[in-house]
């Protein structure tokens, strides 16, 4: 998994509560991404980062924010979790834009 650690691996939270998912990588990859995986939709890009403090929105960014204060850490925050955000979240990293994306093992988030 290219030295990518996602935490927590599983989380159950209540509607309306804030949630932060963490992606930590030891590969010194510049590029980092958050995807969500849902049945029938494959994986969809939420936010991405091309470096420290350089982030941008992906296809399904509403309700999510990100921060990257260090190369190795990329945080995904749900400010006020909703049931529609129940999903499996994957972090991915890449050394440069045109090299392979490496995925973490995922975080299963359930919003009740």
């Amino acid at each position, binding site marked *: *998994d290219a030295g*990518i650690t996602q935490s927590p691996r599983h989380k159950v939270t209540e509607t309306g509560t804030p949630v932060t998912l963490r992606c930590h990588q030891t590969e010194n990859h510049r*590029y980092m*991404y958050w*995807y969500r995986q849902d049945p*029938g*939709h*494959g*994986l*969809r*890009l939420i936010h*991405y980062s091309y470096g420290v403090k350089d982030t941008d929105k*992906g*296809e399904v960014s509403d309700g999510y924010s990100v921060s990257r204060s260090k190369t190795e850490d990329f945080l995904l925050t749900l400010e006020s979790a909703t049931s529609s955000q129940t999903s499996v979240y*994957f972090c*991915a*990293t*890449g050394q440069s*834009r*045109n*090299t*392979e*994306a490496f*995925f*973490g*093992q*995922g975080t299963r988030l359930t919003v009740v």
Partner: protein
Amino acid sequence: QQQVKQSPQSLIVQKGGISIINCAYENTAFDYFPWYQQFPGKGPALLIAIRPDVSEKKEGRFTISFNKSAKQFSLHIMDSQPGDSATYFCAASLDQGAQKLVFGQGTRLTINP
């Protein structure tokens, strides 16, 4: 909108047979087409990828066939083995990027022994 459409949703193949998964895309600006393999409880892992300057790429038992005019590409798994049982995703990206991906819906492949 689904920019990359994948079929079938599920596929059962006998051991030793050929597994074929198809994808169609809409955006002609896509210039990188990878296939990812995912086992239960794991993240996707790159299996094989192709760029539109070639029509076919083979790596071992895995082959991508690419039809630019039809905006379609497919994954062929020859001599399918039970260990190939997994979910497969096609994807596409722009500007020669390989990480900012648009994924298909996925195909759950089961290889019966």
